[in-house]
């Protein structure tokens, strides 16, 4: 009886728990954030690529194409580098609006998320 009850609960939980998955290509930046006392940054590729082609950030702005490989510091952003190229209050909101980018859950690791098709053997 107990076994059956446990199985019922397990199955119920499996059916009820909707998979919480980041959108494909979302990036978490947390090399420094939480150590500095702010939430991790969530960067969404989908939002940005509607407005900018890959080459803008990955060529002009110098972002390496590997999550976690970029050492992005707030001082650089404030000086107009990296995100600060646009997040300057002119093209997009300025760096003083911390919470809009630093919006992640605590404990997230820097990586790319949401590959619902390929979470495979690779380094993602």
């Amino acid at each position, binding site marked *: 009886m107990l076994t059956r009850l446990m199985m*019922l609960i397990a199955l119920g939980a499996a059916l009820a728990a909707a998979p919480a998955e980041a959108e*494909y290509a979302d990036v978490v930046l947390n090399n420094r954030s939480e150590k500095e006392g702010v*939430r991790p940054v969530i960067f969404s590729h989908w939002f940005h690529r509607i407005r900018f082609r*890959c*080459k803008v950030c*990955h060529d002009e702005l110098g972002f390496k194409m590997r999550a976690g490989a970029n050492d992005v510091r707030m001082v650089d952003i404030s000086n107009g580098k990296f995100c600060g190229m646009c997040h300057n209050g002119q093209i997009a909101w300025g760096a003083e609006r911390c919470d809009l980018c630093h919006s992640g859950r605590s404990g997230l690791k820097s990586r790319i998320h949401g590959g619902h*098709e390929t979470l*495979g*053997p690779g380094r993602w």
Partner: protein
Amino acid sequence: MRATSKWLSGSSFRNFFDAVFHKEFVGRRSDKLLRRRVLVLVAALALVAQAPIAAEWVRHWLPLAKDGIHDPKSPALKVLQDPAAALSRLPADRVGNQVNWVAALEQGVINPRTNILPETKVRILDTDILLNLRGGTPIVRFPHRQHTLWLDCSNCHEHLFQSKAGANKFSMERILQGEQCGVCHGAVSFPLTACARCHNTPRDKPLPAAAVRGS
């Protein structure tokens, strides 16, 4: 499918079934066939519910508050756009963001900026390269045009791929590990499960004349 049926008729699932329905079912051999049929029906319905069939493919995006990475308490959630609001207007795809990003660009549904610095030279190349010429899977026709609409030459050359056709040695294993094409495909651009999008040229037909032969 066979494995699934076997699992469904396995003892654990039978126990569950008995617990859910009627205790009298247990041990009544005449009901065994009926029970198995009901199980198969339930399983089939569950599968259909999980994966909508082609004609009724419905795109669905989780709101940021439920995506598992945003902090539900973050004030940003009152400001930031949910994926569905933007992506549902773009040409559909089955994979990735469920958006065909190249189609979105080519149809003019979106017109993302090509550069911020006025001095940046926007470079487009319209040369197709045939790859995997000696492999077993269909030949890969790599289109530079679609890639350079998004990317600059320097994003791939020369650190990922040499510009000289035929000089590169490709490996699906490395690609699946996030190297070579896998730097983007499987991470941001369409995933590696969409094999035929790259392996798109049959081996037994005349090769496209305009395309350059690579490795």
